[in-house]
């Protein structure tokens, strides 16, 4: 039995909130740089160059890449041989987020009640997903999610007879209709299968995978490639101002489902697809 103290968790989460908002992962950086070379639209090319410059300024000046520093989505992967010592784990996670957003000068964008809408002023509570696994690992992923793109996400409860064509149509139409608002170039997370809520979770989880890493299921890998290719033919382009770079990546996560259903969730993310993982 390995013991982890919640003070350790708080400190790490604090640092990770700040790190995620100032630095993009190398797969995202590389994808943005490469997209400048292939974009055909002159306006689109200029926009992509500015996005590249923005990343450098963020690093150089220690300023968040985007002013929407998001709602903190936290994924915990915990081995069942771990014991937590100290506070309640959930309280520790929220304390880490609270300190990170305060000390990192990040924007506090969370309101306490969806209708009354008073700002909690510390960006808590976080959205927390737990996954209990074998062994004694303790892995934390922080993925701040901005709502410009979150708002453009959709879920569809298709019929089994809709099949793969129905799935493609749902995803492509979502990007066609809403993508321009979500700060393209986009990263698209797709959930396929499960139940209503599992499917949405899968779409979010798909955003955590490196964008250049395909699914290890053959027909899903093929679907990822087809969809990315089709989406980049829509003409939406960088910032929705036209072009061939609408999405930098599209990842699909799947799960078994019911004989009567075919859930599809599309979680759209902008080019500021932030996620940081640490293992304690």
């Amino acid at each position, binding site marked *: 039995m390995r013991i982890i103290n919640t003070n350790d968790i708080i400190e790490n989460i604090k640092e990770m909130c700040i790190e995620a908002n100032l630095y993009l992962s190398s797969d995202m950086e590389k994808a943005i740089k490469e997209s400048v070379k292939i974009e055909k639209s002159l306006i689109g090319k200029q926009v992509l160059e*500015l996005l590249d410059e923005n990343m450098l300024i963020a690093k150089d000046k220690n300023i968040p890449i*985007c002013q929407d520093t998001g709602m903190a989505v936290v994924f915990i992967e915990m081995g069942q041989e771990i014991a937590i010592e100290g506070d309640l784990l959930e309280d520790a996670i929220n304390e880490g987020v609270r300190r990170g957003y305060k000390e990192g000068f990040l924007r506090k964008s969370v309101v306490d009640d969806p209708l009354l809408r008073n700002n909690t002023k510390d960006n808590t509570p976080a959205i927390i997903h737990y996954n209990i696994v074998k062994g004694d690992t303790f892995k934390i992923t922080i993925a701040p999610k901005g709502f410009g793109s979150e708002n453009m996400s959709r879920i569809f409860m298709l019929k089994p007879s809709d099949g793969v064509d129905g799935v493609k149509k749902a995803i492509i139409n979502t990007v066609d209709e809403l993508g321009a*608002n979500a*700060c393209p170039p986009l990263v698209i997370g797709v959930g396929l299968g499960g139940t209503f809520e599992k499917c949405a979770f899968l779409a979010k989880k798909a955003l955590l995978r490196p964008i250049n890493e395909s699914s290890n299921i053959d027909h899903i890998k093929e679907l990822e490639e087809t969809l990315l290719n089709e989406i980049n033919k829509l*003409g939406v382009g960088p910032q929705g101002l*036209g072009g*061939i770079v609408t999405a930098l990546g599209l990842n699909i996560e799947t799960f078994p489902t019911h004989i009567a259903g075919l859930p599809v969730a599309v979680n759209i993310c*902008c080019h500021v697809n932030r996620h940081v993982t640490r293992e304690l």
Partner: protein
Amino acid sequence: MIREIITPLTYDIIKNLKAGDFINITGKIYTARDSAHKRMITDLENNKPIPIPLEGNIIYYMGPTPAKENQVIGSAGPTTSNRMDSFAPTLMDLGLKGMIGKGERSPEVIESMEKNNVIYFAAIGGAGALLSKHITNVKVIAYDDLGTEAIRELTVDKLPVIVVIDDKGNNLYKLEKDKYRSI
């Protein structure tokens, strides 16, 4: 070619702006996003004055990250404009001449822009670090309790934006998308 304009906007400036133009804005502009818009419209409904001097001015749909001690402002990119669509025509009828945000607008907003000769600019979404470099002074002028959503008067120096919908209704989101569409 990038052109420079200085606020406040006049009809002479507006009539020469076309969808697709890259523009640098210098002068004063005002921030307001969801909560501030809602409050302004409620004030107007109750016959109270609103804090933004609208005539000839520009509203930037933006809520910044907090500034550190050595900074004027934190990250300062645009938010999605369509959430302000239900409020925008009222403000345009009262003299607002420009909006800065990102993404498409509703047909009602575009109609009001044509009627009132108003320009809609896009700033680059997700480029908040870069945009903050062009903001030289910040003053909270109303609704301080809204935090990041408070109304701020910004002094900007060559703030880079693109005209995305002009006062003739030319819409870059539609015109340019069609050029590159092959599906």
